[in-house]
């Protein structure tokens, strides 16, 4: 007879039949019946109605039957808490049973019944079992403490179970030690400061001793626990490393990885000139290589980890290039990871070998893999300068095969090579141009167009080539359209005489016939630029581009450090910090590599001498300021004030250049133009603003456009600070974000400029704010509808609401933002001018004003000076009104104008102000009164900003 019959379909009276069988006198029949019940449970049928009958079978001396009943209990107790009480007596009795198996079984099962009422009965048996003479019972009881803690943490603390658990760390049985460590580690995670796992040299010593004796799984718990310890000095660090190293040859890969994690962390503390440091480096390579002979699943996980290790310490695997060569029958996801690591390990020493391999891969069958291989050749060229020439010739060979996707990928990477080594390989352009027709992917077309535009002066028929693209302009993707627009403008600036018509054509296509705001904006900007000042246009559009960096997709150093602390975990597979995917508070503690302390013998300093090869990545963290805190959970950040006002790095792309030229003041102007693109030429000319651009070789259309710009009569608008770079590209894998805040028609807007400075297309943008002082939150999703291609810039306006969750920030107007795209999640913080939050109905009645002014205690008043402001009181008042700062009354006393003003913040807080303006004195005095005096400082900053702009 087999068990499979239990899975046969349910008939109507089945429950009834089972009930009868459960109550049978025959043991065998009972057992069979319980089995049937459990089979039904597995396939998802509800057999909870049988609860009392099954519980009745609990009192038996047949262990097999007992186990089955317990299995049932664990599943249904939660839904039948009252019934579960029925079982308590048996549990308590079983905990006293002479058979240790039954004692352990009872205590294990009780912990799994997650019913509050049961927990109180559990305490006494658990206490006994924790001190049981049999290690099997003790190890089960140790886990049970963790279970109980999960249900009722307070109870566990009150009952003193934590102390008992701590004692178990010194137990004679390694299995008990391992479980105690595991339980304590988990409990400690929910009490970050409890010091539960009091790790000190003595306890570490105990753990290291237990490490040698316990099962492989226990070793993992212990190693993971060790990884949280920070040794006092390099000697202790070395002695722990020495005792952990033997684990590297364990057959269980999880043990190996946990050991690698401990070593990678503690190595950080060892002086580099120590012999042992070198020995350790050598010992780390073989186990990592061994992992690559496991099943593909393990290989993949291992490769993701090796990717991190190689970025942190490339010297470990620098001689092992060969093991990362792709096998013909590797699954594609393993192949792609291997390629990534090959490029990271590529150096002058092995580049010939790597290139030979890559060339082979480029002729394989799998398209994705081939593409990545071709890209890898390009990356090698960029990374290893000596190999560039060979890479280019390899790429040319590949182009000769005329395989469509190979050609396209090759062109995309050749573009990058041109940018890295300008004026070196342009001789190949002719070959590239031959393949123009076969390009059908946007990225390749865009790359080709970029090349044509960039080298227009060397390509005789550049205008024809570009014109051919122009025919199907509206069918192209945005990426190509933008690139084409720029390329033709470049061409025009280089050969103005022949291409006037072409440039007009593209400008009108971009501005008049397109619905894409990015394209239109860029079109208008070029158009105005060309008509205003062709010389400036040349400087902007043909500006020298910064060289692209060697490694495009390195993980940001602080994140890398954190990930190194999580080697062997899911974080190392996702390449994201655990806080990004683990629920709640568990696991959000940020782990850091320990700092090198040294034992004071001065042996550890001469780091400078050998900085040539391997130590470059180590130096990186000090170059990039500590962005790391930002990378963590947005909820518990402790970041330093961000550098919002830092100098804008000399922006690279020509698009950005264009924006800067227009300056912050024109922001609103552009906004108007974009929102009424069809306004046409109806606006009167404003010759005063129009410079002598009449000689510009562009037709009248431009003039009209310009008229439009000059003619829009701007009312005194709200103050909008100039855009600043919030997130530099180097910290965000090529995504640069700059922006500002504005209040337009009562709506707060966050105006972002996203620039893609990486080599790959970015999509799937989304934005989120951390809780902040005024509950700012995006009122809608981030509208980036088209993918953002390399070198592309997009401007987005994000309307904000003030109904989000509130948390006081320091400074008050600090806003922490997370932006996600298809590549990663990036964090930055910025400060918004508080004037954004000033609402339109902020004008107080005079009587109310007076009463309120008196009502607010004098302690809440703060006084500030505004210096060097040359406006009279009238102008100041007007200007302030534009930002919703309302003048309620004005008084003149002894030649001093006293302006009384009111402001209402979006959260209903009123701020009252008194502004003293003395004719002829550029220094104003301002007094602010508010029930929430914290805002005063920010409000003052706004006054200053508004009045001075």
């Amino acid at each position, binding site marked *: 007879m087999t068990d499979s019959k239990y899975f046969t379909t349910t008939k109507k009276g089945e429950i009834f039949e089972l009930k009868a069988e459960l109550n049978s006198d025959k043991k065998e029949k009972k057992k069979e019946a319980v089995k049937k019940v459990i089979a039904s449970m597995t396939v998802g049928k509800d057999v909870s109605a049988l609860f009392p009958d099954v519980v009745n079978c609990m009192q038996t001396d047949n262990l097999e039957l007992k186990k089955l009943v317990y299995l049932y209990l664990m599943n249904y107790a939660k839904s039948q808490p009252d019934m579960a009480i029925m079982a308590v007596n048996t549990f308590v009795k079983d905990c006293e049973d002479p058979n240790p198996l039954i004692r352990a079984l009872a205590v294990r099962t009780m912990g799994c019944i997650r019913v509050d009422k049961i927990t109180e009965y559990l305490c006494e048996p658990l206490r006994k079992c924790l001190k049981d003479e049999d290690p099997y019972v003790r190890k089960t009881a140790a886990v049970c403490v963790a279970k109980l803690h999960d249900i009722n943490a307070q109870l566990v603390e009150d009952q003193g179970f934590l102390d008992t658990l701590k004692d178990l760390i010194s137990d004679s049985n390694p299995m008990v030690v391992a479980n105690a460590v595991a339980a304590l580690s988990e409990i400690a995670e929910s009490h970050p400061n409890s010091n539960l796992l009091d790790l000190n040299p003595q306890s570490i010593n105990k753990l290291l001793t237990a490490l040698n004796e316990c099962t492989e799984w226990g070793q993992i718990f212990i190693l*993971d626990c060790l990884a949280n310890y920070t040794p006092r000095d390099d000697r202790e660090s070395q002695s722990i490393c020495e005792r952990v190293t033997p684990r590297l040859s364990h057959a269980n890969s999880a043990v190996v*990885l946990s050991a690698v994690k401990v070593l990678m962390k503690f190595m950080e503390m060892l002086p580099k000139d120590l012999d042992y440091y070198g020995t350790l480096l050598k010992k780390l390579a073989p186990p990592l290589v061994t992992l690559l002979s496991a*099943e593909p699943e393990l290989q993949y996980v291992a490769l993701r980890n090796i990717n991190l290790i190689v970025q942190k310490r490339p010297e470990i695997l620098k001689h092992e290039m060969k093991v990362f060569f792709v096998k*013909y029958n590797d699954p*594609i996801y393993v192949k792609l990871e291997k390629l990534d690591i090959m490029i990271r390990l590529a150096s002058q020493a092995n580049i010939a070998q790597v290139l030979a391999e890559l060339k082979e891969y480029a*002729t394989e069958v799998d398209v994705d893999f081939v593409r990545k291989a071709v890209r890898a050749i390009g990356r090698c060229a960029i990374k290893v300068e000596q190999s560039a020439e060979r890479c280019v010739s390899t790429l040319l060979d590949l182009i000769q095969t005329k*395989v469509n996707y190979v050609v396209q990928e090759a062109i995309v990477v050749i573009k990058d090579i041109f940018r890295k080594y300008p004026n070196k390989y342009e001789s190949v352009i002719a070959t590239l141009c031959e393949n123009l027709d076969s390009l059908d992917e946007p990225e390749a077309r865009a790359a080709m167009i970029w090349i044509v535009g960039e080298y227009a002066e060397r390509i005789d028929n550049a205008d024809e080539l570009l014109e051919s693209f122009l025919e199907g302009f509206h069918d192209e993707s945005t990426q190509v359209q933008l690139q084409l627009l720029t390329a033709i403008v470049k061409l025009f600036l280089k050969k103005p005489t022949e291409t006037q018509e072409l440039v007009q054509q593209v400008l009108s296509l971009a501005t008049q016939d397109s619905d894409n705001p990015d394209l239109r904006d860029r079109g208008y900007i070029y158009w105005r630029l060309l008509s205003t000042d062709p010389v400036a246009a040349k400087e902007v559009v043909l500006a020298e581009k910064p060289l692209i960096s060697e490694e495009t997709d390195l993980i940001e150093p602080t994140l890398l450090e954190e990930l190194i602390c999580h080697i062997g*975990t899911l974080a190392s597979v996702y390449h994201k910090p655990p806080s990004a*995917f683990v629920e709640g508070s*568990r696991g959000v503690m940020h782990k850091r590599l320990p700092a090198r302390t040294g034992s004071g013998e001065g042996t550890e300093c001469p780091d400078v001498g050998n900085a040539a090869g391997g130590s470059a990545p180590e130096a990186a963290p000090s170059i990039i300021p500590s962005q790391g805190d930002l990378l963590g959970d947005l909820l518990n950040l402790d970041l330093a004030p961000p550098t919002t006002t830092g100098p804008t790095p000399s922006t690279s792309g020509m698009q950005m250049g264009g924006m800067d030229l227009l300056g912050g003041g024109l922001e609103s102007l552009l906004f108007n133009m974009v929102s009424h693109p069809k306004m046409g030429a109806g606006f009167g000319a404003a010759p005063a603003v129009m410079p002598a651009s009449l000689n510009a070789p562009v037709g009248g259309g431009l003039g009209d456009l310009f008229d439009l710009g000059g003619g829009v009569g701007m009312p005194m608008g709200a103050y909008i600070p100039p855009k600043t770079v919030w997130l530099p590209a180097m910290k965000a894998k090529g995504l640069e974000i700059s922006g500002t805040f504005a209040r337009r028609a009562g709506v707060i807007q966050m105006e972002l400029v996203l620039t893609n400075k990486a080599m790959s297309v970015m999509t799937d943008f989304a934005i989120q704010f951390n809780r902040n002082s005024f509950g700012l939150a995006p009122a809608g999703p981030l509208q980036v509808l088209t993918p953002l291609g390399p070198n592309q810039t997009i401007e987005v306006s994000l309307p904000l609401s003030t109904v989000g969750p509130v948390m006081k920030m320091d400074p008050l107007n600090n806003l922490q933002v997370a932006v996600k795209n298809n590549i990663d999640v990036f964090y930055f913080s910025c400060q918004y001018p508080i004037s954004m939050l000033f609402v339109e109905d902020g004008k107080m009645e005079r009587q109310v004003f007076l009463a309120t002014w008196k009502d607010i205690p004098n302690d809440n008043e703060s006084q500030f000076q505004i210096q060097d402001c040359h406006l009279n009181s009238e102008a100041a008042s007007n200007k302030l009104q534009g930002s919703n700062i309302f003048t309620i009354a004005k008084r003149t006393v002894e030649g001093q104008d006293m302006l009384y003003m009111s402001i209402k913040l979006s959260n209903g807080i009123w701020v009252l102000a008194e502004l003293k303006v003395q004719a002829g004195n550029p220094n104003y005095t301002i007094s602010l009164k508010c029930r929430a005096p914290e805002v005063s400082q920010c409000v003052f900053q706004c006054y200053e900003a508004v009045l001075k702009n």
Partner: protein
Amino acid sequence: MISQVFILSSKGDHLIYKDFRGEAGKDAVNKFYEMVTALTGGQPPVVMKHKELHFVHIRQGGLYWVATTKADASPFTIIEFLNRLTALVKDYCGCLSEKSVQMNFALIYELLDEVVDFGYIQTTSTDILKNFIQTEAVSSKPFSLFDLSNVGLFGADTQQNKVAPSAAATRPIVSSQGEQGGKNEIFVDVIERMSVVIGANGVLMKADIEGEIRVKCYMPSCSEMRIGLNEEFSIGKSQLSGYGAAVRVDECSFHQAVRLDEFDTYRILKVCPSQGEQTVMQYQLCDDLPTAPPFRLFPSIERDSGGRLLMYLKLRCDLPPKSLSQELSSPDQSAELQPKNKAVHWEIPRFPGGAQLSALFKLEVSGLSAASLQEVGPVSLSFELPKYTSTGLQIRFLRLSPIQPGPSQRWVRYVTHSDSYTIRI
């Protein structure tokens, strides 16, 4: 920390479902099946995420073995654990199949209960577990030599499952009721996997061997087994072997139960094998093979006057003539064009050492140009060489102590598989 473990059939039926921590719902099972069946070829299936839940799974015996977790757990631990779990189930139930899992669900639940507690893995050793497990396995069929289940030769993972399996190693380890074929047997398998890349010019570019010694033990009372390896066995690159016959590997790791006190001097492994299957030793050798790679290819690729692609392949087996089956190349070779993989599949049932086979393929390829000849290749071979180890590793002797009462049988088997054997053109 493991949150749930479940086993699904390839059609998505729930066979086993066990929740250890009560933090995720049972709907995770269906969600997993949805996700795993929606995977495309390029996506790594290893770790999948749905909301807060992470799925790690392996496929064995045509079943999905899945563990979920909510913490930042170690995927290595979970994958290793799932592999062990499959090994345990195989040891206890005899073989891995939908049927055997279904029939033994009570046993598997009991195993899971002992193996994992509150998501912490406790033990996966059959030695320890046999003290606790009460339920007896139900075997799907009485043991029979003719049982051609889908297990490869010697239970090893082969690429070609068409080789007749040895069913001797596919029965439950623990079986108290009547010794149905339950002989005192012990199997020691030396299994090597080769991955070789031979360049277009015939130069050996890469040759790696990964090997392992597996013991499958059916003896209830075996206190110690001594496995003697080649005396000239050396480990590491530095040790020069001197005169010929030495067997060398680069790296070597052992099961933790292996005692090595006689290893340094006499190359003897001492194990107390627990019942069931375990890998006692793993080793690797990179690049420096003691013998030439077993197969060489002499290709010639050209375009004929009719614009067809001509591939003339000559394949030679360089093993000594006696080392393989002496049967002559049987006529039942076959070849087939697989347009989906853009490959020609040439199947050779038997290939004696020292022999040479050749084949001529003519292919109609549209738009064939001189440059597209570059695209042809590589040639990838998969094969199995019985009674052969490419490192030369041998088992000198196998001694059991105390001497087993009654008849006992000891089997030593060697096999070399191709892992990835690629010849570029």
